């Protein structure tokens, strides 16, 4: 993970309008990530969230276990933080589409989406709202369709 996520909220002192303008300019480029540091500790970091594989946005889809009858994939946390379930909260048995935001991990004041990398049915919800999660922790298991 990039080291330059921190200090958390360093960009908070930048006017919202300026950040919005930056975000628009950023989305017009092919850049994945853009970080601008000010003279003090001011910094703003923009990261592309759409059409990016889940592995780079807060969750990783593990390979299904060999020999299992259904193709079950684990959605894991790839950073340390507090997990917040999506609204409405994902439920076991629920069908989800690829890219659906199931939850997000809040780390250093930043929301890192946890997405389903493929469509399927949620077999297990292995986490609860407000829980501290570690790197590699299994959050959901999805039977791929």
């Amino acid at each position, binding site marked *: 993970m990039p080291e330059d996520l921190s200090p958390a909220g360093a960009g908070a002192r930048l006017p919202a309008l300026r950040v919005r303008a930056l975000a628009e300019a950023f989305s017009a480029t092919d850049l994945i990530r853009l970080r601008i540091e000010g003279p003090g500790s001011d910094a703003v970091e923009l990261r592309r969230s759409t059409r990016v594989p889940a592995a780079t946005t807060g969750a990783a889809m593990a390979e299904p276990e060999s020999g299992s009858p259904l193709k079950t994939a684990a959605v894991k946390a790839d950073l340390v933080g*507090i997990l917040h379930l999506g609204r409405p909260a994902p439920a076991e048995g629920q069908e989800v589409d690829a890219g659906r935001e199931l939850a997000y991990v809040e780390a250093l004041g930043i929301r890192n989406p946890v997405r389903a990398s493929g469509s399927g049915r949620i077999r297990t919800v292995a986490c609860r709202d407000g829980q501290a999660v570690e790197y590699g922790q299994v959050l959901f298991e999805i039977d791929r369709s």
Partner: protein
Amino acid sequence: MFKKVLIANRGEIALRINRACRELGVHTVAIYSEADRTSLHVRHADQAFCVGPGPVARSYLNIPNIISTALITGCDAIHPGYGFLSESARFAQICNDHGITFIGPKPSVIAAMGDKATAKRVMSEAGVATTPGTDILASVREAARAAESIGYPVLLKATAGGGGRGMRVVNAPEELERAYASATAEAEASFKDGRVYMEKLILRPRHIEVQVLADNYGAIVHLGERDCSVQKPSHQKLIEEAPAANLPPKTRDALHAMAVRACAHVGYTNAGTLEFLVSGEQIYFMEMNTRIQVEHPVTEMVYNIDLVKEQIRVAADEPLGYLQGDLRSTGHAIECRINAEDARNNFAPAAGTLEHVVFPGGPGIRVDTHVYSGVAVPPFYDSMIAKVVAFAETRDAAITRMERALRETVVKGTPTTIGQCLEVLATKRFRSGDYDIDFLPSLLHAAPVA
């Protein structure tokens, strides 16, 4: 005192810090990589969080995940141990920015001492003798000019360096270009900072370092010296002892005084070590390590003090509560580093599973280790698996005790440095106390380990 400390390290030093916290009544949070899931430091802490996969850049150097762990677990301090982030001024600053106390000196002092060229300049201001040398070199041409004026042989050193990486001996002008290229490349690869500087190569020096401790109220004490001259050809230490043998009292006093003066000059706080090269009566400041060191136990044994607890107390704003005159060194301590390394193959690190491990015990023996029978030694980290420390009333008795302890030690599964340590202890040179940093390389050269 702190309520909860995050231990931003692994291995024996993570356990060492955990023990100090336990005895101070402080809760602990361990961090670990996926490769260290079964490591002892994970088991001993109150809480443990995986912060990334095996490679250090994504786990033990992963600042966002480490800070996030500290915040969500409610830690009020972080102990960085040695290596990893322990000498990162940026990390110390980030801790402070998040309201977490970094257990170590101020970020500005870490930055000044961490840049070796800056450190040398600051030390000369404090009246500490430094090795004749240069500031950071801009080019190989500048290096050639500097070498001519200093006089060969010279040493190229990475300004961000440590552990012998980014360091090259240059004996003659024709070797310079190649040495400069490889030193900068190695420094860039190891520290992401390829800048190097040059020093006169002091022939056959002893590596003697002074332990210091300073609180936030201006009290500074030294805790004597350690002789770390038994070094591998890579300049990594293998055997350390306290006090240094056969050191003239005048030289010893000068070393101690310089160390305290230097600390006062830079406003140093917490534990630190000043490393010197000693050649005859000449003393040259080499570098300052702004953290706890691997070999700190030998000092703890002879001063009967817990340096890690002192680090935590000082960081928690407690005064030292004693003066130099209250401190007395007694007896002699020797440390042998047990590394999973092949001494016959240039000390190449050897990862693998430690099938069977038995550590020594008995009077005067201390073992700091994180391994046990059946544990795997991952390939990602330092190869040290244990430190065996022998303490006795005299140096001779400490050597005998160490030999006894190493013969009790069993490590099956990887080659180790035990045999090499025993060989060193048996030599007349080591027993006489008259050895320098060329001693082990020449011993290896003369008689490769059978």
